[in-house]
Protein backbone atom coordinates (compact mmCIF):
# COMPACT_ATOMS: atom_id res chain seq x y z
CA UNK A 1 0.00 0.00 0.00
CA UNK A 2 1.38 3.35 -0.99
CA UNK A 3 0.75 6.12 1.52
CA UNK A 4 0.58 9.79 0.69
CA UNK A 5 3.42 11.99 1.94
CA UNK A 6 1.06 13.65 4.41
CA UNK A 7 0.08 10.32 5.93
CA UNK A 8 3.73 9.35 6.26
CA UNK A 9 4.53 12.69 7.86
CA UNK A 10 1.78 12.30 10.48
CA UNK A 11 2.88 8.72 11.11
CA UNK A 12 6.48 9.70 11.67
CA UNK A 13 5.76 12.96 13.47
CA UNK A 14 2.33 12.60 15.03
CA UNK A 15 0.95 15.89 16.40
CA UNK A 16 -0.51 16.09 19.88
CA UNK A 17 0.03 12.52 20.97
CA UNK A 18 -0.92 12.00 24.60
CA UNK A 19 -3.65 12.37 27.14
CA UNK A 20 -4.66 14.63 30.03
CA UNK A 21 -4.25 11.86 32.58
CA UNK A 22 -5.10 8.23 33.15
CA UNK A 23 -8.50 6.94 32.10
CA UNK A 24 -9.65 7.27 35.74
CA UNK A 25 -8.42 10.87 36.06
CA UNK A 26 -10.11 12.14 32.93
CA UNK A 27 -13.35 10.31 33.68
CA UNK A 28 -14.06 12.81 36.46
CA UNK A 29 -12.61 15.96 34.90
CA UNK A 30 -15.37 18.24 33.73
CA UNK A 31 -13.14 20.35 31.47
CA UNK A 32 -12.05 17.28 29.52
CA UNK A 33 -14.13 15.37 27.00
CA UNK A 34 -13.05 11.90 26.02
CA UNK A 35 -14.00 10.01 22.89
CA UNK A 36 -12.95 6.43 22.30
CA UNK A 37 -14.18 4.83 19.09
CA UNK A 38 -13.46 1.64 17.19
CA UNK A 39 -12.54 -1.78 18.56
CA UNK A 40 -9.30 -3.75 18.81
CA UNK A 41 -10.68 -6.71 16.88
CA UNK A 42 -11.43 -4.41 13.96
CA UNK A 43 -7.86 -3.17 14.03
CA UNK A 44 -8.65 0.45 14.93
CA UNK A 45 -9.15 2.22 18.24
CA UNK A 46 -9.00 6.01 18.39
CA UNK A 47 -8.95 8.01 21.59
CA UNK A 48 -9.44 11.74 21.44
CA UNK A 49 -9.35 14.00 24.50
CA UNK A 50 -10.34 17.66 24.33
CA UNK A 51 -9.76 20.31 26.94
CA UNK A 52 -12.46 22.95 26.73
CA UNK A 53 -12.30 26.39 28.35
CA UNK A 54 -15.13 28.43 29.82
CA UNK A 55 -15.89 30.06 26.50
CA UNK A 56 -16.53 26.65 24.96
CA UNK A 57 -13.31 26.74 22.97
CA UNK A 58 -11.15 23.66 22.58
CA UNK A 59 -7.91 24.86 24.14
CA UNK A 60 -6.00 21.67 23.68
CA UNK A 61 -6.48 18.23 22.18
CA UNK A 62 -4.59 14.97 22.51
CA UNK A 63 -4.94 11.69 20.70
CA UNK A 64 -3.86 8.09 20.94
CA UNK A 65 -4.48 5.66 18.14
CA UNK A 66 -4.17 1.92 17.63
CA UNK A 67 -4.58 1.43 13.91
CA UNK A 68 -3.02 1.65 10.50
CA UNK A 69 -0.99 4.62 9.27
CA UNK A 70 -4.08 6.26 7.79
CA UNK A 71 -5.91 5.97 11.10
CA UNK A 72 -2.99 7.52 12.96
CA UNK A 73 -2.78 10.34 10.43
CA UNK A 74 -6.54 10.97 10.55
CA UNK A 75 -6.58 11.34 14.32
CA UNK A 76 -3.39 13.38 14.38
CA UNK A 77 -4.88 15.74 11.78
CA UNK A 78 -8.14 15.94 13.72
CA UNK A 79 -6.31 17.26 16.78
CA UNK A 80 -4.62 19.93 14.68
CA UNK A 81 -7.90 21.04 13.18
CA UNK A 82 -9.98 21.21 16.34
CA UNK A 83 -7.48 23.06 18.52
CA UNK A 84 -8.65 26.65 18.98
CA UNK A 85 -12.08 25.93 17.54
CA UNK A 86 -15.35 26.26 19.43
CA UNK A 87 -17.03 22.93 19.94
CA UNK A 88 -19.70 23.83 17.43
CA UNK A 89 -17.06 24.62 14.82
CA UNK A 90 -15.34 21.36 15.62
CA UNK A 91 -18.59 19.51 15.09
CA UNK A 92 -18.78 20.84 11.56
CA UNK A 93 -15.61 18.98 10.50
CA UNK A 94 -16.53 16.29 8.00
CA UNK A 95 -14.68 13.07 7.31
CA UNK A 96 -14.55 13.95 3.61
CA UNK A 97 -12.32 16.91 4.44
CA UNK A 98 -9.90 14.53 6.13
CA UNK A 99 -10.01 12.18 3.14
CA UNK A 100 -9.16 15.06 0.87
CA UNK A 101 -6.39 16.52 3.01
CA UNK A 102 -4.62 13.16 3.44
CA UNK A 103 -5.46 11.76 -0.03
CA UNK A 104 -6.87 8.61 1.56
CA UNK A 105 -7.71 5.78 -0.84
CA UNK A 106 -11.25 4.27 -0.75
CA UNK A 107 -10.22 1.36 1.51
CA UNK A 108 -9.09 3.87 4.13
CA UNK A 109 -12.18 6.08 4.23
CA UNK A 110 -13.31 4.32 7.40
CA UNK A 111 -10.28 5.87 9.16
CA UNK A 112 -11.57 9.36 8.45
CA UNK A 113 -15.04 8.31 9.61
CA UNK A 114 -13.56 7.12 12.88
CA UNK A 115 -11.74 10.42 13.31
CA UNK A 116 -14.99 12.35 12.79
CA UNK A 117 -16.73 10.00 15.23
CA UNK A 118 -14.01 10.54 17.82
CA UNK A 119 -14.55 14.32 17.66
CA UNK A 120 -18.32 13.88 18.08
CA UNK A 121 -17.83 11.38 20.85
CA UNK A 122 -15.38 13.58 22.80
CA UNK A 123 -17.70 16.58 22.51
CA UNK A 124 -20.70 14.50 23.57
CA UNK A 125 -18.75 13.35 26.63
CA UNK A 126 -17.87 16.93 27.48
CA UNK A 127 -21.47 18.05 27.10
CA UNK A 128 -22.75 15.18 29.19
CA UNK A 129 -20.32 15.91 32.00
CA UNK A 130 -21.42 19.53 32.00
CA UNK A 131 -25.14 18.87 31.77
CA UNK A 132 -25.50 20.41 28.32
CA UNK A 133 -28.15 18.77 26.17
CA UNK A 134 -26.83 17.70 22.82
CA UNK A 135 -27.35 20.44 20.28
CA UNK A 136 -27.34 23.39 22.74
CA UNK A 137 -24.78 26.12 22.85
CA UNK A 138 -21.76 24.98 24.81
CA UNK A 139 -20.61 28.46 25.71
CA UNK A 140 -23.36 28.44 28.30
CA UNK A 141 -21.57 25.76 30.24
CA UNK A 142 -20.25 26.45 33.68
CA UNK A 143 -17.41 24.46 35.08
Amino acid at each position, binding site marked *: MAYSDKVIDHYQHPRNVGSFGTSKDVATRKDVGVGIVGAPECG*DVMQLQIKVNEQGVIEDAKFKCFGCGSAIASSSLATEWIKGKSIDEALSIKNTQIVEELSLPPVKIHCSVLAEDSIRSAIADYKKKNGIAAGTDAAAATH
Partner: protein
Amino acid sequence: MAVKLPIYMDNAATTRTDPRVVEAMLPYFTEKFGNAASRNHKFGWEGEDAVDLAREQAAALIGASPKEIVWTSGSTESNNLAIKGAARMYAKGPEGSKNRGHIIAAAHEHKAVLDPCKRLQNEGFDVTFLQPPADGVITRAMVAEAMRDDTILVSIMWANNEIGTINEVPEIGALCHERGAIFHTDATQWVGKMPTNVDKDNIDLMSWSGHKMYGPKGVGALYVRRRNPRVRLEAIQDGGGHERGMRSGTLNVTGIVGFGKACELAMHEMDTERERLLGLRRKLERDLSSRLEVVQVNGHAERRLPHILNISFGYVEGESLLMGIKDIACSSGSACTSASLEPSYVLKSLGVGDELAHSSLRLSLGRWSTEEEVDYAVEGIVKAVNHLRTMSPLWDLYKEGIDVSKIEWQTH
Protein backbone atom coordinates in the same frame (compact mmCIF):
# COMPACT_ATOMS: atom_id res chain seq x y z
CA MET B 1 29.55 -5.46 7.00
CA ALA B 2 26.98 -2.93 5.90
CA VAL B 3 23.47 -4.19 5.45
CA LYS B 4 21.95 -3.74 2.02
CA LEU B 5 18.41 -2.35 2.19
CA PRO B 6 15.68 -3.39 1.97
CA ILE B 7 16.26 -6.63 3.83
CA TYR B 8 14.39 -9.67 2.54
CA MET B 9 12.74 -11.66 5.33
CA ASP B 10 9.84 -13.15 3.42
CA ASN B 11 11.32 -16.43 2.24
CA ALA B 12 8.15 -18.33 3.08
CA ALA B 13 6.40 -16.28 0.38
CA THR B 14 9.06 -16.88 -2.20
CA THR B 15 12.82 -17.20 -2.41
CA ARG B 16 15.40 -15.58 -4.60
CA THR B 17 16.34 -17.94 -7.43
CA ASP B 18 19.82 -19.27 -6.74
CA PRO B 19 22.21 -17.93 -9.41
CA ARG B 20 23.45 -21.50 -9.92
CA VAL B 21 19.89 -22.46 -10.80
CA VAL B 22 19.60 -19.60 -13.27
CA GLU B 23 22.85 -20.63 -14.87
CA ALA B 24 21.61 -24.19 -15.33
CA MET B 25 18.40 -22.89 -16.93
CA LEU B 26 19.87 -20.41 -19.40
CA PRO B 27 20.85 -22.76 -22.27
CA TYR B 28 17.32 -24.09 -22.38
CA PHE B 29 15.89 -20.79 -23.50
CA THR B 30 17.90 -20.12 -26.62
CA GLU B 31 20.02 -23.14 -27.51
CA LYS B 32 18.40 -26.31 -26.20
CA PHE B 33 14.88 -25.06 -26.69
CA GLY B 34 13.35 -28.28 -27.98
CA ASN B 35 9.99 -29.70 -26.95
CA ALA B 36 10.68 -32.63 -24.64
CA ALA B 37 7.97 -34.56 -26.45
CA SER B 38 9.61 -34.22 -29.89
CA ARG B 39 10.98 -37.67 -30.56
CA ASN B 40 12.53 -37.13 -33.98
CA HIS B 41 15.42 -34.75 -33.51
CA LYS B 42 18.27 -33.62 -31.32
CA PHE B 43 16.38 -30.63 -29.96
CA GLY B 44 13.65 -32.83 -28.59
CA TRP B 45 16.12 -35.36 -27.18
CA GLU B 46 18.02 -32.63 -25.37
CA GLY B 47 14.82 -31.42 -23.81
CA GLU B 48 13.82 -34.92 -22.79
CA ASP B 49 17.25 -35.64 -21.30
CA ALA B 50 17.11 -32.44 -19.29
CA VAL B 51 13.66 -33.30 -17.96
CA ASP B 52 14.82 -36.83 -17.10
CA LEU B 53 17.78 -35.49 -15.16
CA ALA B 54 15.53 -33.07 -13.25
CA ARG B 55 13.14 -35.92 -12.48
CA GLU B 56 16.05 -37.85 -10.98
CA GLN B 57 17.19 -34.83 -8.97
CA ALA B 58 13.67 -34.24 -7.64
CA ALA B 59 13.14 -37.92 -6.86
CA ALA B 60 16.50 -38.20 -5.11
CA LEU B 61 15.65 -35.32 -2.79
CA ILE B 62 12.57 -37.13 -1.49
CA GLY B 63 13.66 -40.78 -1.75
CA ALA B 64 11.28 -41.55 -4.61
CA SER B 65 11.64 -43.14 -8.04
CA PRO B 66 11.80 -40.69 -10.97
CA LYS B 67 8.69 -42.32 -12.43
CA GLU B 68 6.75 -41.05 -9.43
CA ILE B 69 7.26 -37.36 -10.22
CA VAL B 70 4.58 -35.41 -12.13
CA TRP B 71 5.52 -31.90 -13.24
CA THR B 72 3.05 -29.12 -12.54
CA SER B 73 3.00 -25.33 -12.42
CA GLY B 74 3.43 -25.21 -8.65
CA SER B 75 1.95 -26.34 -5.37
CA THR B 76 -1.48 -24.92 -6.09
CA GLU B 77 -1.80 -27.14 -9.12
CA SER B 78 -0.18 -30.11 -7.39
CA ASN B 79 -2.64 -29.81 -4.49
CA ASN B 80 -5.60 -29.55 -6.86
CA LEU B 81 -4.49 -32.53 -8.89
CA ALA B 82 -3.77 -34.63 -5.80
CA ILE B 83 -6.94 -33.83 -3.90
CA LYS B 84 -9.53 -33.62 -6.66
CA GLY B 85 -7.75 -36.28 -8.70
CA ALA B 86 -7.67 -38.83 -5.88
CA ALA B 87 -11.14 -38.05 -4.54
CA ARG B 88 -12.75 -38.42 -7.97
CA MET B 89 -10.76 -41.59 -8.70
CA TYR B 90 -11.58 -43.30 -5.40
CA ALA B 91 -15.12 -41.93 -5.06
CA LYS B 92 -17.58 -44.37 -3.55
CA GLY B 93 -20.40 -43.18 -5.77
CA PRO B 94 -20.85 -41.75 -9.28
CA GLU B 95 -20.91 -38.06 -10.12
CA GLY B 96 -24.13 -36.45 -8.96
CA SER B 97 -24.65 -38.86 -6.06
CA LYS B 98 -24.23 -38.17 -2.35
CA ASN B 99 -21.93 -39.82 0.22
CA ARG B 100 -19.12 -40.24 -2.29
CA GLY B 101 -16.53 -40.57 0.46
CA HIS B 102 -14.98 -38.84 3.44
CA ILE B 103 -11.93 -36.54 3.33
CA ILE B 104 -9.92 -35.15 6.24
CA ALA B 105 -7.92 -31.91 6.10
CA ALA B 106 -6.85 -29.31 8.66
CA ALA B 107 -8.54 -25.94 9.08
CA HIS B 108 -5.22 -24.09 8.85
CA GLU B 109 -4.12 -25.58 5.54
CA HIS B 110 -3.20 -23.23 2.69
CA LYS B 111 -6.14 -22.04 0.58
CA ALA B 112 -4.78 -24.23 -2.21
CA VAL B 113 -5.86 -27.23 -0.10
CA LEU B 114 -8.95 -25.76 1.58
CA ASP B 115 -10.61 -24.58 -1.61
CA PRO B 116 -10.26 -27.86 -3.57
CA CYS B 117 -11.73 -29.61 -0.50
CA LYS B 118 -14.63 -27.16 -0.42
CA ARG B 119 -15.29 -27.77 -4.10
CA LEU B 120 -15.41 -31.51 -3.40
CA GLN B 121 -17.99 -30.87 -0.68
CA ASN B 122 -20.24 -29.55 -3.45
CA GLU B 123 -19.57 -32.70 -5.46
CA GLY B 124 -20.97 -35.06 -2.83
CA PHE B 125 -17.89 -35.65 -0.68
CA ASP B 126 -17.93 -35.15 3.05
CA VAL B 127 -14.96 -33.16 4.40
CA THR B 128 -13.82 -32.87 8.01
CA PHE B 129 -11.64 -29.82 8.69
CA LEU B 130 -9.67 -30.57 11.83
CA GLN B 131 -9.44 -27.65 14.22
CA PRO B 132 -5.79 -27.27 15.27
CA PRO B 133 -4.94 -26.93 18.96
CA ALA B 134 -3.32 -23.74 20.27
CA ASP B 135 0.18 -24.96 19.34
CA GLY B 136 -0.93 -25.57 15.75
CA VAL B 137 0.29 -29.16 15.50
CA ILE B 138 -2.00 -31.79 13.97
CA THR B 139 -1.28 -35.17 15.55
CA ARG B 140 -1.92 -38.74 14.52
CA ALA B 141 -4.43 -39.01 17.37
CA MET B 142 -6.51 -36.13 16.02
CA VAL B 143 -6.67 -37.69 12.58
CA ALA B 144 -7.42 -41.13 14.07
CA GLU B 145 -10.38 -39.70 15.89
CA ALA B 146 -11.82 -38.22 12.70
CA MET B 147 -11.23 -41.37 10.60
CA ARG B 148 -14.29 -43.23 9.35
CA ASP B 149 -14.80 -46.41 7.39
CA ASP B 150 -15.52 -44.34 4.31
CA THR B 151 -12.46 -42.06 4.64
CA ILE B 152 -10.80 -42.14 1.23
CA LEU B 153 -8.31 -39.29 1.49
CA VAL B 154 -6.39 -37.41 4.18
CA SER B 155 -4.57 -34.17 3.33
CA ILE B 156 -2.42 -32.68 6.08
CA MET B 157 0.31 -30.16 5.29
CA TRP B 158 3.79 -31.00 6.47
CA ALA B 159 4.69 -27.58 7.83
CA ASN B 160 2.45 -24.56 8.05
CA ASN B 161 3.35 -21.58 5.87
CA GLU B 162 2.38 -18.90 8.38
CA ILE B 163 3.64 -20.29 11.66
CA GLY B 164 6.08 -22.97 10.51
CA THR B 165 4.69 -25.64 12.84
CA ILE B 166 5.35 -29.24 11.86
CA ASN B 167 2.52 -31.77 11.85
CA GLU B 168 2.94 -35.46 12.68
CA VAL B 169 3.20 -36.41 9.04
CA PRO B 170 4.99 -39.79 9.14
CA GLU B 171 2.65 -40.93 11.92
CA ILE B 172 -0.45 -39.74 10.09
CA GLY B 173 0.79 -41.47 6.93
CA ALA B 174 1.20 -44.74 8.84
CA LEU B 175 -2.34 -44.40 10.18
CA CYS B 176 -3.70 -43.84 6.67
CA HIS B 177 -1.93 -46.95 5.41
CA GLU B 178 -3.33 -49.02 8.26
CA ARG B 179 -6.80 -47.74 7.45
CA GLY B 180 -6.57 -47.90 3.66
CA ALA B 181 -6.89 -44.15 3.03
CA ILE B 182 -4.73 -42.20 0.57
CA PHE B 183 -2.42 -39.72 2.26
CA HIS B 184 -1.52 -36.40 0.64
CA THR B 185 0.73 -33.79 2.17
CA ASP B 186 1.29 -30.22 1.02
CA ALA B 187 5.03 -30.07 1.65
CA THR B 188 5.63 -26.71 0.01
CA GLN B 189 7.38 -25.22 3.04
CA TRP B 190 9.13 -28.45 4.00
CA VAL B 191 10.84 -30.07 1.04
CA GLY B 192 14.31 -28.76 0.36
CA LYS B 193 14.62 -27.53 3.94
CA MET B 194 14.09 -30.74 5.90
CA PRO B 195 15.03 -34.37 5.22
CA THR B 196 12.27 -36.18 3.36
CA ASN B 197 11.78 -39.83 2.47
CA VAL B 198 8.41 -40.71 1.01
CA ASP B 199 8.78 -44.38 1.99
CA LYS B 200 9.85 -43.89 5.59
CA ASP B 201 7.45 -40.99 5.94
CA ASN B 202 4.51 -43.01 4.59
CA ILE B 203 3.46 -40.56 1.91
CA ASP B 204 1.27 -41.32 -1.11
CA LEU B 205 0.97 -37.89 -2.67
CA MET B 206 3.14 -34.85 -1.99
CA SER B 207 3.12 -31.31 -3.42
CA TRP B 208 5.93 -28.83 -3.59
CA SER B 209 6.93 -25.70 -5.51
CA GLY B 210 10.21 -24.59 -7.06
CA HIS B 211 10.11 -20.99 -5.90
CA LYS B 212 10.04 -21.80 -2.19
CA MET B 213 13.40 -23.59 -2.40
CA TYR B 214 15.49 -21.21 -4.50
CA GLY B 215 14.16 -22.48 -7.83
CA PRO B 216 12.05 -20.61 -10.39
CA LYS B 217 8.40 -19.64 -10.01
CA GLY B 218 5.64 -21.37 -11.92
CA VAL B 219 7.03 -24.89 -11.69
CA GLY B 220 6.19 -27.54 -9.14
CA ALA B 221 5.97 -31.26 -8.66
CA LEU B 222 3.54 -33.84 -7.39
CA TYR B 223 4.90 -37.07 -6.05
CA VAL B 224 2.50 -39.93 -6.90
CA ARG B 225 3.23 -43.29 -5.25
CA ARG B 226 3.46 -46.22 -7.69
CA ARG B 227 3.74 -49.15 -5.28
CA ASN B 228 2.18 -50.13 -1.94
CA PRO B 229 -0.26 -48.71 -2.77
CA ARG B 230 -0.27 -47.68 -6.43
CA VAL B 231 -2.08 -44.35 -6.43
CA ARG B 232 -4.16 -43.37 -9.42
CA LEU B 233 -5.50 -39.92 -10.19
CA GLU B 234 -8.19 -38.58 -12.44
CA ALA B 235 -6.56 -35.86 -14.54
CA ILE B 236 -7.82 -32.31 -14.30
CA GLN B 237 -6.15 -31.01 -17.43
CA ASP B 238 -6.70 -33.15 -20.55
CA GLY B 239 -4.81 -32.94 -23.81
CA GLY B 240 -1.71 -34.50 -25.30
CA GLY B 241 -1.36 -37.09 -22.55
CA HIS B 242 1.92 -35.83 -21.09
CA GLU B 243 3.05 -37.04 -17.65
CA ARG B 244 1.38 -40.43 -18.16
CA GLY B 245 -1.93 -38.73 -18.82
CA MET B 246 -2.01 -37.10 -15.41
CA ARG B 247 -1.06 -33.63 -16.60
CA SER B 248 -1.23 -32.79 -20.27
CA GLY B 249 0.63 -29.83 -21.68
CA THR B 250 4.08 -29.19 -23.18
CA LEU B 251 6.58 -29.41 -20.37
CA ASN B 252 8.13 -26.22 -19.06
CA VAL B 253 11.62 -27.56 -19.76
CA THR B 254 13.48 -24.47 -18.60
CA GLY B 255 11.57 -24.30 -15.35
CA ILE B 256 11.91 -28.02 -14.76
CA VAL B 257 15.69 -27.82 -15.28
CA GLY B 258 15.78 -25.08 -12.64
CA PHE B 259 13.56 -27.08 -10.31
CA GLY B 260 15.87 -30.08 -10.62
CA LYS B 261 18.97 -28.01 -10.00
CA ALA B 262 17.33 -26.43 -6.94
CA CYS B 263 16.57 -29.93 -5.60
CA GLU B 264 20.17 -31.01 -6.13
CA LEU B 265 21.52 -27.93 -4.32
CA ALA B 266 19.06 -28.39 -1.47
CA MET B 267 20.11 -31.99 -1.03
CA HIS B 268 23.74 -31.01 -0.59
CA GLU B 269 23.29 -27.86 1.44
CA MET B 270 20.21 -28.58 3.52
CA ASP B 271 21.94 -29.82 6.65
CA THR B 272 24.34 -26.93 7.13
CA GLU B 273 21.75 -24.41 6.00
CA ARG B 274 19.20 -25.70 8.49
CA GLU B 275 21.57 -25.35 11.42
CA ARG B 276 22.62 -21.88 10.35
CA LEU B 277 19.05 -20.64 9.89
CA LEU B 278 17.95 -22.16 13.17
CA GLY B 279 20.72 -20.21 14.92
CA LEU B 280 19.63 -16.98 13.25
CA ARG B 281 15.96 -17.50 13.96
CA ARG B 282 16.63 -18.28 17.61
CA LYS B 283 18.61 -15.07 17.88
CA LEU B 284 15.85 -13.07 16.22
CA GLU B 285 13.28 -14.57 18.55
CA ARG B 286 15.42 -14.19 21.68
CA ASP B 287 16.37 -10.58 20.99
CA LEU B 288 12.83 -9.45 20.20
CA SER B 289 11.38 -11.26 23.21
CA SER B 290 13.97 -9.87 25.60
CA ARG B 291 13.78 -6.29 24.41
CA LEU B 292 10.02 -5.92 24.18
CA GLU B 293 7.20 -6.64 26.62
CA VAL B 294 3.98 -8.43 25.68
CA VAL B 295 5.40 -10.42 22.83
CA GLN B 296 3.94 -13.77 21.78
CA VAL B 297 5.53 -16.34 19.51
CA ASN B 298 2.72 -18.08 17.63
CA GLY B 299 2.69 -21.82 17.13
CA HIS B 300 4.52 -24.61 18.89
CA ALA B 301 7.71 -23.50 20.67
CA GLU B 302 9.91 -26.30 19.31
CA ARG B 303 8.11 -28.21 16.56
CA ARG B 304 8.71 -25.53 13.97
CA LEU B 305 10.65 -25.01 10.76
CA PRO B 306 14.05 -23.50 11.47
CA HIS B 307 13.56 -20.39 9.35
CA ILE B 308 10.05 -19.12 10.17
CA LEU B 309 9.14 -16.88 13.10
CA ASN B 310 5.57 -15.71 13.62
CA ILE B 311 5.42 -13.20 16.42
CA SER B 312 2.74 -10.86 17.78
CA PHE B 313 3.33 -7.57 19.56
CA GLY B 314 0.51 -6.71 21.91
CA TYR B 315 -1.33 -3.40 21.50
CA VAL B 316 0.20 -2.39 18.17
CA GLU B 317 -1.56 -2.81 14.85
CA GLY B 318 0.09 -4.84 12.13
CA GLU B 319 -0.23 -2.54 9.15
CA SER B 320 1.17 0.44 11.02
CA LEU B 321 3.97 -1.79 12.24
CA LEU B 322 4.84 -2.73 8.66
CA MET B 323 4.83 0.96 7.82
CA GLY B 324 7.41 1.52 10.53
CA ILE B 325 9.71 -1.17 9.20
CA LYS B 326 9.57 -0.27 5.53
CA ASP B 327 13.05 -1.57 4.84
CA ILE B 328 12.34 -5.02 6.26
CA ALA B 329 10.34 -7.06 3.76
CA CYS B 330 8.09 -9.48 5.65
CA SER B 331 4.44 -10.47 6.00
CA SER B 332 1.71 -9.37 8.36
CA GLY B 333 -1.61 -10.98 9.23
CA SER B 334 -2.68 -13.46 6.65
CA ALA B 335 0.38 -13.99 4.53
CA CYS B 336 -1.27 -14.65 1.20
CA THR B 337 -4.32 -12.45 1.46
CA SER B 338 -2.69 -9.34 2.85
CA ALA B 339 -4.88 -7.28 0.54
CA SER B 340 -7.76 -7.84 2.94
CA LEU B 341 -7.92 -6.40 6.44
CA GLU B 342 -9.12 -9.67 7.94
CA PRO B 343 -6.84 -11.09 10.57
CA SER B 344 -5.11 -14.29 9.54
CA TYR B 345 -7.43 -17.31 9.53
CA VAL B 346 -4.47 -19.49 10.48
CA LEU B 347 -3.82 -17.54 13.69
CA LYS B 348 -7.55 -17.36 14.40
CA SER B 349 -7.82 -21.14 14.06
CA LEU B 350 -5.18 -21.46 16.79
CA GLY B 351 -7.31 -19.30 19.06
CA VAL B 352 -5.01 -16.28 18.84
CA GLY B 353 -7.22 -13.27 19.69
CA ASP B 354 -8.01 -10.81 16.93
CA GLU B 355 -5.84 -8.09 18.44
CA LEU B 356 -2.75 -10.26 18.58
CA ALA B 357 -3.53 -11.70 15.15
CA HIS B 358 -3.70 -8.14 13.79
CA SER B 359 -0.32 -7.35 15.29
CA SER B 360 1.58 -10.35 13.98
CA LEU B 361 4.61 -10.45 11.75
CA ARG B 362 5.90 -13.45 9.87
CA LEU B 363 9.64 -13.20 9.46
CA SER B 364 11.12 -15.94 7.31
CA LEU B 365 14.84 -16.32 6.75
CA GLY B 366 16.63 -17.83 3.78
CA ARG B 367 19.86 -18.84 2.11
CA TRP B 368 21.24 -15.30 2.02
CA SER B 369 20.06 -14.06 5.41
CA THR B 370 22.88 -12.81 7.62
CA GLU B 371 23.38 -12.09 11.28
CA GLU B 372 23.78 -8.39 10.47
CA GLU B 373 20.36 -8.45 8.85
CA VAL B 374 18.87 -10.08 11.92
CA ASP B 375 20.40 -7.38 14.13
CA TYR B 376 19.12 -4.66 11.84
CA ALA B 377 15.63 -6.16 11.83
CA VAL B 378 15.57 -6.39 15.63
CA GLU B 379 16.57 -2.72 15.97
CA GLY B 380 13.96 -1.65 13.43
CA ILE B 381 11.14 -3.66 14.92
CA VAL B 382 11.90 -2.63 18.51
CA LYS B 383 11.96 1.02 17.48
CA ALA B 384 8.71 0.78 15.53
CA VAL B 385 6.87 -1.12 18.27
CA ASN B 386 7.96 1.39 20.90
CA HIS B 387 6.97 4.32 18.68
CA LEU B 388 3.52 2.82 18.12
CA ARG B 389 3.05 1.98 21.77
CA THR B 390 3.60 5.60 22.79
CA MET B 391 0.61 6.30 20.55
CA SER B 392 -1.50 3.29 21.49
CA PRO B 393 -4.52 3.83 23.76
CA LEU B 394 -4.60 0.09 24.35
CA TRP B 395 -1.03 0.13 25.62
CA ASP B 396 -2.04 2.83 28.16
CA LEU B 397 -4.98 0.76 29.35
CA TYR B 398 -2.74 -2.28 29.68
CA LYS B 399 -0.24 -0.22 31.70
CA GLU B 400 -3.07 0.99 33.96
CA GLY B 401 -3.86 -2.65 34.62
CA ILE B 402 -7.11 -2.68 32.67
CA ASP B 403 -7.99 -5.84 30.76
CA VAL B 404 -8.58 -4.60 27.23
CA SER B 405 -10.53 -7.72 26.27
CA LYS B 406 -13.13 -6.98 28.96
CA ILE B 407 -14.00 -3.52 27.64
CA GLU B 408 -17.18 -3.11 25.64
CA TRP B 409 -16.10 -1.35 22.49
CA GLN B 410 -18.38 0.84 20.43
CA THR B 411 -18.21 -0.79 17.05
CA HIS B 412 -19.88 0.46 13.94
